[in-house]
């Protein structure tokens, strides 16, 4: 029994009307359909409608083997493809109790931090574009293209790489990897100050994002917000610090937690995370250990019976993979706890009372990827 659609306009409330934003809209970052109840230009209520990109990945994985379902996860949150693959590989290794070589762990961490940089760059460019600033879009893609070229040399493709697999990584590093990454980081450390000149210090951007979409700490905990959205409201939820994996416990980096909770704070958290990622790459790039890059696994993997859960930190928050296995070749039930699904729940509560223009500012800093919500 469903409740009737609650956004039915009422006849005796003149001035109130319901509009549709999406599914095809330049600033929803994908196919998200929002039904918004407005009073003039002020938002009274928002109801998200999902399912326009629901491909049934969880049901599909129940027919695929444990080495095959990983290619589908690259397409969920495609800007954190390496992290999604790593979550699935770690859970399979946990089930088989497999130890991977040190070289594979360091290569995985390098790829992941580079992916985090590329993802935050694209977010920065499109956040500027949503606000009306067109130049940051081109500046953001400058370094992102260089990172994608590094990926292409080693992993084979630019966007949906299945490079991190159970047992290690798929191929060894390209011979010029270390040199190219060092040159990129050196250049990026100089160029990141341009970001402050273009957007962070821009008075129009500040006025559009400060005190807009404030998320308090209690509400963020109750809603399950993680990632930069949660950290900007004061929750310390970085999975790399709380439940470290693959060698993060040996690295020295700070967790960025701020307390104000508005859109500008979420923006600043991500800029600082980019600087921390560069710091992590600096620590790893000179000390890649020699050895194997992969451990051989059986051709057909069967996980022992039971339940498993693995968390990783993607660019947008905590991704959790929950597998129920009954000993067969395919998982019995697989559930992806995606960060964007919980972050979308935040939107209804923080956008009430603001204007339509503020809604665009809020969505730009929430950084949602819609295929991750719908899976």
């Amino acid at each position, binding site marked *: *029994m*469903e*409740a009737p*659609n*609650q956004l039915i306009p009422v006849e005796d409330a003149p001035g109130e009307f319901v509009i549709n934003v999406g599914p095809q809209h330049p600033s929803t970052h994908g196919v998200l359909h929002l039904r918004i109840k407005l009073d003039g230009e002020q938002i009274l209520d928002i*109801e*998200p*409608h*999902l*399912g326009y990109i*629901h491909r*049934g990945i*969880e*049901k599909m994985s129940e027919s695929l083997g444990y080495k095959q379902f990983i290619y589908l996860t690259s397409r969920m949150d495609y800007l954190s493809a390496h992290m999604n693959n790593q979550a699935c590989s770690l859970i399979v290794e*946990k*089930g088989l109790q497999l130890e991977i070589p040190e070289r594979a762990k360091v290569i995985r961490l390098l790829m992941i931090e580079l992916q985090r940089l590329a993802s935050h760059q694209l977010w920065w460019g499109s956040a500027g574009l949503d606000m009306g600033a067109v130049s940051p879009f081109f500046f953001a893609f400058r370094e992102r293209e260089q990172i994608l070229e590094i990926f292409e040399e080693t992993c084979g493709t630019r966007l949906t790489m299945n490079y991190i697999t159970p047992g290690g990584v798929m191929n060894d590093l390209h011979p010029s990897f270390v040199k190219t990454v060092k040159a990129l980081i050196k250049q990026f450390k100089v160029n990141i100050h341009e970001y402050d000149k273009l957007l962070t210090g821009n008075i129009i951007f500040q006025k559009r994002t400060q005190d807009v979409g404030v998320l308090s700490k209690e*509400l963020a*905990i*109750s*809603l*399950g917000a*993680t990632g930069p959205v949660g950290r900007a409201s004061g*929750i*310390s*939820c970085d999975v790399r610090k*709380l439940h470290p994996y693959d060698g993060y416990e040996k690295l020295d980096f700070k967790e960025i937690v701020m307390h104000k909770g508005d859109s500008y704070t979420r923006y600043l958290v991500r800029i600082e995370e980019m600087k921390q990622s560069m710091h992590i790459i600096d620590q790893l790039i000179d000390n890649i250990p020699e050895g194997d890059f992969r451990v051989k696994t059986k051709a057909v993997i069967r996980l022992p019976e*039971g*339940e*498993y*859960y693995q968390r990783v930190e993607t660019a947008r928050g*905590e991704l*959790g993979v*929950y597998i*129920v296995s009954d000993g067969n070749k395919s998982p*019995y*039930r697989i*559930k992806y*706890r995606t960060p964007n*699904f*919980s972050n*979308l*729940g935040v939107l209804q*509560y923080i956008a009430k009372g603001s204007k339509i223009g503020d809604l665009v500012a809020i969505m730009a800093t929430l950084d949602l990827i819609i295929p991750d919500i*719908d899976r």
Partner: protein
Amino acid sequence: MSKEELKAYLELTFPTCKFENSIDFPLLIVEKESFFAIAKQLKEEPATNFDFLFCQTAVDYISHFEVVYHLTSTQYRHDLVVKVMLEDRENPVTESVYPLWKAAELYENEIFDLFGITFLNHPNLRRIMLGKDWPGYPLRKDYSDDFILTPQS
């Protein structure tokens, strides 16, 4: 509290519930009727303080459904899994935990959409992904695609 201390504490506090072991988190299996009171106590008790619901899902074991809740505490950093068994396959109903954790709103919409489990006291239960007219519940094990492959004219 560590995993063993938590398990000991919970065995004392809830003597009627069953425990299981898993490789990651302690598992608490709860009856449907007493579930909401136990969840409320888990959240509000100062010694456990489970204030963060980070995953809620359902699994279809062919004889029954299970609704699985993953909880953690931002203060103590301990985790717990709570499971509720639903025997009725025709009309599975259980209580919503939206009054305790607001994150449950979207999770329960998704479970209603893909499994058909109804949640009482939910603010806006609707088929959020597939739409009102989709026949059947896809993630059940007895879901059949025949209406797509052999459409009735």
